[in-house]
């Protein structure tokens, strides 16, 4: 323990009732002509990078492998020391002061997660508070709040990382990074090693968290789809860490700056726009709902003019139960157990692209959309999606209106 307990920042004074939410004021991050040349190489890994990440936004650094994304990101917390230039967090240069102390004030999440295998989940999450000298009770309280925030059973606090799934481990990685509520987070391909289904779930969760926490996030990925989904702003880098375009996802899709960006974004730009919108933002169809025991007569009448040609049975909490078939409707009353189940259910928070994927996978033309608690909010159909793609021909102003999926 060579470093003494560092001076606590103002926000550390009262960790007890530290809410999970937007306590620490997010801070902008500014690159000023930052270059990095690794010893023994004859060109810059990052060359005179200038970039301004507004406070509270997710800025994605995206680009082909080896273009310098990781290097650019790691110079912020000085796990890589820059060769020239400067990086400001707020109005303070990262060059000032001790690197280890700087890192404690910056959340850090990496693809390989890097949880400490010999520490329990609670100890892992409590690492930085421990380094900052918080009391045991304060740490305990904070860990509990964070476990809740990442939706992990509190019992998991006593387990070791090897006892968790990859997705759960990465959630813990995020919680560890959030432990002292840092204003800035660095995330290097955080979901890159997670299987596609869990990746999309973790992405949604993080966007939900971010809507609440409003951190300034530098997010590195090589996957342009992820960039479009996660970024408020995207910096497309080419080799040498040079910015090819720095723009909102919409701008990037509508007006790629040059051939490199156009190539990188891909020929399916139109489809990629589906990532700009959440299912809940689409004009969903209204379901023809009914409850068990309702007389079937009126249901049949209403169906004749409904958008969805089938009636959906919901329970008392308006959670979808199943679709009524012709045979179900032939009875006097709506049965409690209809012939076909309601799945697939689509999460209202998922992006349109994932909603479409779910539809296509299940072979249905439409599916019930439910919110976080499972309550029905509407029906998503293939027609809605094709309309979004064609009608809008998604003009820029349309997209500007929906702008960010998580706002």
């Amino acid at each position: 323990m060579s470093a003494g307990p560092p001076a606590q920042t103002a926000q550390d004074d009262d960790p007890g009732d530290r809410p999970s939410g937007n306590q620490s004021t997010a801070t902008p991050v500014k690159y000023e002509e930052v270059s990095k040349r690794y010893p023994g190489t004859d060109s810059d890994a990052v060359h005179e990078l200038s970039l301004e990440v507004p406070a509270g936004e997710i800025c994605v650094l995206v680009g082909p492998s080896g273009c310098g994304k990781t290097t650019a990101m790691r110079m912020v917390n000085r796990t890589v020391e820059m060769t020239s230039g400067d990086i400001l967090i707020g109005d303070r240069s990262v060059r000032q002061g001790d690197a280890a102390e700087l890192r404690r004030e910056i959340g850090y999440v990496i693809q390989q997660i890097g949880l400490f295998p010999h520490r329990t989940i609670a100890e892992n999450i409590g690492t930085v508070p421990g380094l900052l000298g918080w009391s045991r009770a304060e740490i305990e309280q904070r860990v509990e709040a964070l476990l809740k925030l990442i939706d992990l059973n509190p019992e998991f606090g006593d387990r070791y990382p090897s006892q968790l799934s990859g997705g759960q481990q990465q959630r813990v990685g995020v919680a560890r990074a959030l432990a002292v509520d840092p204003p800035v987070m660095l995330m290097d391909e955080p979901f890159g090693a997670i299987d596609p289904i869990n990746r999309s779930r973790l992405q949604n969760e993080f966007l939900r968290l971010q809507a609440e926490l409003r951190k300034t996030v530098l997010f590195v990925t090589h996957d342009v789809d992820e960039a479009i989904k996660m970024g408020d702003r995207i910096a497309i880098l080419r080799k040498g860490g040079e910015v090819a375009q720095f723009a909102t996802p919409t701008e990037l899709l509508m007006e790629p700056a040059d051939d490199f960006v156009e190539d990188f974004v891909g020929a399916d730009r139109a489809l990629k726009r589906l990532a700009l919108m959440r299912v809940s933002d689409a004009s969903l169809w209204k379901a023809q709902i009914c409850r068990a025991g309702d007389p079937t007569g009126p249901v049949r009448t209403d169906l004749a003019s409904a958008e969805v040609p089938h009636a959906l049975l919901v329970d008392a909490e308006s959670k979808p139960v199943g679709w009524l078939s012709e045979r179900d409707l032939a009875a006097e009353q709506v049965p409690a157990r209809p012939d076909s189940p309601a799945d697939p259910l689509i999460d209202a928070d998922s992006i349109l692209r994932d909603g479409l994927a779910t539809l296509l996978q299940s072979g249905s033309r439409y599916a019930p959309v439910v919110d976080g608690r499972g309550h029905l909010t509407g029906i998503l159909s293939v027609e809605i999606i094709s309309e979004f793609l064609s009608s809008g021909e998604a003009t820029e102003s349309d997209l500007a209106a929906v702008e960010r999926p998580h706002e």
Partner: protein
Amino acid sequence: MSSWVADGWLADGWLAGAAVSSDFFRDRSGGGCIQENKLFCPDWAINNLDRYSDPTLQHLVLVVSAVAAGFVIAFSLAVLAHRHRFLSSPFLAATGVLYTIPSISFFFLLLPITGRGAVTAIIALTAFTLQIIFRNMTTGLRNVPPEVTEAARGVGLTATQVLWKVEIPLAMPEIIAGLRIATVSTVALATLAVFANGGGLGAEIVTGSNITFKTGIIIAGSIAILMAIVFDALLLLTGRLLAPWKRVAL
């Protein structure tokens, strides 16, 4: 105890040149069994068990001192070599030489410097343990997953904290494994301490230049084996306690 450490406790020891006294043969309690030097004479064993308590204690001291000293030195060397990679090869080579020198030659090399006695024996035994402990510890440190140290650094642990809070705890299973091998081998090797006038159970095995008293060898040997087993079990247990994360059901 100080006397044997300082000047050699075995007055008529092997290096002193005198043949070991014929205690065994004056002692008639074993009767014909002793005369015929049978494989094992239970009667003699029962009557003479107390003669093994001092050698056992001396043996314990030899082993514990040598392994403790070896651990402290090898641990420090491993930490140094971990910080400064270029030191790794020279350390490995040096401890390798010490490991390979036959202990008996080492005793004679040390005689002019440290004289006869337990200190000489302990030095030679310590030198022997270095390589085993050093090698295991460096392996353990090297096996720490890079993403774990990377994350540790990234969240704000200093280099010293990374070493003590992450790398060494994670290397602990290998460190303990090294200690187990070193301790068990040292228990066996310490029987040679008698050649340096260092005492220990060897004194009850090498009782004369051309005499082999089988019962004595069996008893002393058994005590050594038992000692090795106990040490091994204790270290195994320590290892388990220090690495609880290794025991979790997945």
